């Protein structure tokens, strides 16, 4: 399936969906590998403990015998028995330390065998409390080679597994967005084909409407003709958007310093019929303002902002257009939008209101042009009150 110029630029929602999928996938892969490492480490640790335990239990028996001996000779003999194979400590029934030679002083008297730092502790509960000791702790050094071996094996298996699973994730993410990509390609192709077919009949309609002498027509017919003209102009605006999107986007455009005032006035005149039809009152505060842009592109921006202000306005509503140095503000008294809707209005194919027509490409075009010229566009909207679109650019 070939892609035209428009489809080559991926939808931001498609990228978002893919990013979200990869994030979620990555999280679960890391969780899975992390848990696998933990279980593997714990099982190997238990294996090592079971090997160490036999030896340490022998040491504990030896030490218990020595404690018994010392208990009988105390206080004549007070030297705590030591052994160069291990360190030890004794705690009483109330967990009070009686004596300790441990190098790792942190003990867990409720455990049987555990690792603390570089040492392994074995806790033996004594039957007779010689010297008052209920708990005898034997400490030996952890096998350094065992630890290095475990870490080496973990890295050897976990890293390739992580790499493999991440590659699988990328492949899956492609599969995941494929239906979406296919729909976009089809939609774009449809729009491109339709755009080509629209131009000739639309031009014919608009030219012929202008040629008709309304003064010779009956009032009722003149009103009907006005409605036809509004409809044709709406289609014309849509056609210009589609043409920009599928044919002109990405082309190198010639920018020049323009006075925005006459352009804006001409566009307001162009939309005046649509405003009249909806009984929308226009308020203007316009001053001559210079801007360096391509004429066709700035007309796309103005047309889209004005057509939205009319389309989403209420009957007998108001539109206030303010043009001042570095700023164009179009304020409507329409139904307004929620914060969530405001955040998504520049998304391509995003339509704010299903009851109104359109492809949902107008504001996406506005955003692209605004970004192209390094301008800024802000949206202020309150549900039930209206929306204000503020276009700002650096003063020339």
């Amino acid at each position, binding site marked *: 399936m070939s892609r035209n110029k428009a489809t080559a630029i991926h939808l931001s929602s498609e990228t978002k969906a893919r990013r979200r999928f990869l994030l979620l996938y990555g999280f679960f892969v890391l969780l899975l590998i992390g848990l696998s490492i933990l279980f593997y480490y714990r099982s190997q640790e238990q294996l090592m403990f079971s090997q160490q335990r036999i030896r340490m239990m022998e040491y504990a028996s030896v030490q218990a015998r020595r404690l018994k001996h010392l*208990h009988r000779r105390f206080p004549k003999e007070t030297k*705590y028995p030591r052994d160069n194979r291990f360190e030890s400590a004794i705690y*009483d029934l*109330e967990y*009070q330390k*009686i004596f300790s030679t441990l190098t790792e002083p942190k003990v867990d008297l409720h455990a049987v065998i555990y690792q603390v730092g570089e040492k392994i502790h074995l806790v033996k509960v004594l039957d007779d*409390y010689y010297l*008052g000791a209920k708990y005898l702790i034997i400490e030996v050094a952890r096998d350094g080679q065992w630890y290095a071996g475990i870490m080496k094996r973990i890295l050897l298996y976990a890293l390739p597994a992580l790499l493999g699973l991440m590659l699988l994730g990328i492949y899956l993410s492609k599969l995941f967005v494929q239906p979406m990509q296919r729909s976009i390609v089809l939609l774009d192709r449809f729009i491109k084909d339709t755009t080509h077919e629209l131009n000739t009949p639309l031009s014919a309609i608009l030219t012929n409407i202008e040629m008709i002498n309304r003064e010779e027509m009956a009032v009722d017919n003149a009103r009907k003709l006005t409605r036809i003209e509004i409809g044709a102009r709406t289609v014309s605006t849509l056609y210009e958007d589609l043409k920009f999107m599928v044919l002109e986007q990405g082309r190198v455009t010639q920018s020049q310093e323009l006075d925005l005032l006459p352009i804006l006035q001409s566009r307001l005149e162009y939309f005046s019929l649509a405003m009249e039809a909806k009984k929308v009152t226009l308020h203007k505060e316009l001053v001559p303002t210079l801007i360096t842009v391509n004429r066709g592109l700035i007309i796309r921006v103005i047309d889209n902002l004005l057509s939205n202000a009319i389309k989403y306005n209420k009957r007998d509503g108001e539109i206030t257009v303010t043009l001042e140095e570095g700023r164009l503000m179009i304020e409507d008294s329409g139904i307004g939008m929620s914060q969530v809707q405001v955040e998504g209005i520049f998304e391509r194919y995003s339509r704010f209101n299903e009851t109104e027509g359109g492809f949902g490409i107008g504001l996406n075009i506005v955003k692209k042009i605004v970004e192209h010229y390094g301008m800024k566009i802000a949206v202020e909207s309150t549900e039930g009150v209206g929306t204000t679109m503020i276009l700002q650019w650096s003063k020339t």
Partner: protein
Amino acid sequence: MKKIILILTLCVAFAYGESSFARECVPCHRQKDISLQKVFMDALLVYGGKENMKAGLAYYFRNPRMGTSVMDEDFLQKNGIKAVTKLSPEIMDEALEEYWKIYTVMGKLR
């Protein structure tokens, strides 16, 4: 009346600097030639901790029987069962505390 006697006894004891343990335990053990150290080590073997030992010995002093003693049969046959204590709980606790401090293993091993 009993309280007054107890307070007077304590005042005299303090005046002469003699502890409850030295006053209430040592004379009798000395007279019967029973080593306080040996008794302590035998009790420690069974009770294994300060509070447990104090509670166990206090119970034995109030209920002296073969079944509540930690001493072996030979010792009991030779020395018999002691009489029920007349010491108040406060005095007994003080004496046992002193006993633990003097004979404890903690801090004496090297």
